[in-house]
């Protein structure tokens, strides 16, 4: 387990990697210490990104990424004793994402495809080496990645692509299911083949 270089108070428990995997899904959680100007810059960046869907088109197209979320942590919530009160000297960026596939391929996609986006999100973090070359960027993420204490997936055997395919298949199967009862065998064969043709990307 490792934490951000100056994030002394932020710790997590659990074995890295194993605790970040549940079935097909992998979680990644990264804390990075943000420079003073990031405190002003990042909320603006988050706002612009949220209001301009075009900026996030590419990440949405990367189907193996379930979601990616960046947020700014300026204080540690206090939940009462025995938790010690902690004060953050610097703001921290909290990045969380879930994905399918390999960790390396996931970071590769961020580096090679979302290069400028990575620079925008992490540029204000201490030690960020740029998104390319990917070697130092991977080392940076590894250095700042923390293991989850608990990670849960509702459908551990399925990936997000599979869940979406199953929903699509269900939509395409439903009309046939409704109309099949009164069909003659020939008509059913034709309707079934049509359904297969329409739904083949989800089979």
């Amino acid at each position, binding site marked *: 387990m490792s934490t951000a270089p100056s994030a002394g108070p932020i710790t997590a428990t659990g074995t890295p990697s194993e605790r970040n995997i549940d079935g*097909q899904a992998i979680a990644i959680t990264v804390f990075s210490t943000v420079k003073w100007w990031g405190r002003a810059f990042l909320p603006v960046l988050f706002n612009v990104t949220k209001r301009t869907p075009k900026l996030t088109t590419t990440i949405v197209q990367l189907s193996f990424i379930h979601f990616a979320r960046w947020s700014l942590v300026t204080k540690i919530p206090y939940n009462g004793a025995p938790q010690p009160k902690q004060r953050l000297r610097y703001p921290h960026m909290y990045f969380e994402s879930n994905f399918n596939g390999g960790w390396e391929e996931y970071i590769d996609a961020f580096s090679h495809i979302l290069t400028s986006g990575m620079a925008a999100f992490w540029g204000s973090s201490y030690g960020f080496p740029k998104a390319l*070359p990917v*070697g130092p960027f991977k080392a940076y993420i590894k250095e700042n990645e923390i293991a989850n204490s608990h990670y849960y997936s509702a459908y551990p055997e399925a990936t997000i692509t599979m869940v979406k395919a199953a929903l699509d298949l269900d939509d395409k199967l439903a009309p046939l299911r409704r109309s099949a009862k009164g069909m003659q065998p020939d008509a059913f064969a034709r309707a079934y083949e049509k359904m*297969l043709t329409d739904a*083949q990307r989800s089979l």
Partner: protein
Amino acid sequence: MADARVHIDLRDLQGDILRAYGNDYDHTSYAFVKITCPPEQARAWFSGLLDHVTTAEPWKDGKPVTTLNVAVTAAGLKALGVSDEVVASFSAEFREGMSSRAERLGDTGVSDPGAWERGLGDGSAHVLLTINAQEAEDHRRALGLMRAAMDDAGGLEIVFQQDTALLTGAREHFGYADGFAQPAVQGASDDKAPGGGVPEEDGRWRALAPGEFVLGYPDEDTRDDPKRTLPNAPADPLGKSGTYMVWRKLYQDVALWRRVMADAAELYQAGDEHKLAAKVVGRWTDGTPLVTHPDKPDPDFDATARGANDFRYSSDSDGMRCPLGSHIRRSNPRDALGFQGALTFRHRMIRRGMPYGDPLPDGKPDDRADRGLVFVSFQASISRQFEAVQMQWLNDGNIFGLGHDKDFLLGDPEGTGKMTIQGRPPFFLAPMEAVVKTRGGEYLFVPGVSALAAIADGTTG
């Protein structure tokens, strides 16, 4: 044609990596040697090999009758006296070895290392000697010399040897032309860029940086780095001009493959089993790609011609011509995953496989003979290149939108994977028993020529 801006020190690189020796060499033997003697004694024998090692330098006096190349496992480096500290500078997957990574590679069930052939995957393989020969007689002589040198040295034992020979027409046992589609490497094979390099937006192709395949050179990540940093490599002098090698013995059940295709084809397009099998592979038997010739092979197709592999998948995004899960589309998706190949270009390998065993003639019943393919690949990173392809593309279908479906040609050792052949309507191949089974394998390192000398001298640091 080589890119003059990139200079690769071919004298320091072993042969058959960036450029194949070619099909004139139709006999190849792979001998895995175990070192049972002290490192000094083993190094004396190792030193004697160096004069015979074939480098990548162009041959001025014609092709030699035989070639010799040397690779070592992590255990082999230690047996030759390389310090633990230096061995620790090699990649984790190399140090762990192929059998330790069986689960992630899909080597389970019938391909489990517990059932591998003796001498492979059990830590006893230390040095791999690869001998190529143009004639059977030269082949026998070279093997004799190899054994004599080992006997003279003492404390050495061949724990596994696989003899292979090309099949007629450079086909593999299922009948397909194999091994002619290779990555184009900057400074070595730039002329192969169309279809072999990275697909660019303007329709052109770019050869891959040499560091994708040879250590000590910029790779695709560092080629434009103003700091000129080099990719990770073992500690010098071993890091220069070396490469990682994957060696696998893959048994092919030819009779089962033919039966499965023939049975399935009874329900497919008037029993066209050749077309059905081509759909599984992504090429016709002569190598014609389905994406350009979906209905029948191109009679003029020449696998060795310039541009023979110059095709993309973006015009066939629904897989109607070449199925989304076909073998060649999975193993090298080119632009199929979008983003101008940005999700694929770091996962390329140079392959130098050879078939072993006698062919099963058409129409002959199953003779249960041992036959298949020795799969050999060279890459700078076993995990990023070989393992990623094996895990993410061949043993999983998610990235292609194919759920848990695995590569149907290589098969699923658990016998659970189906294949969808896109069409109107689509056709489904039911799960089948594995037609390809892993019989053993090793992760190796192919040192550069100066690195071989350093190992022999015991000066690896």
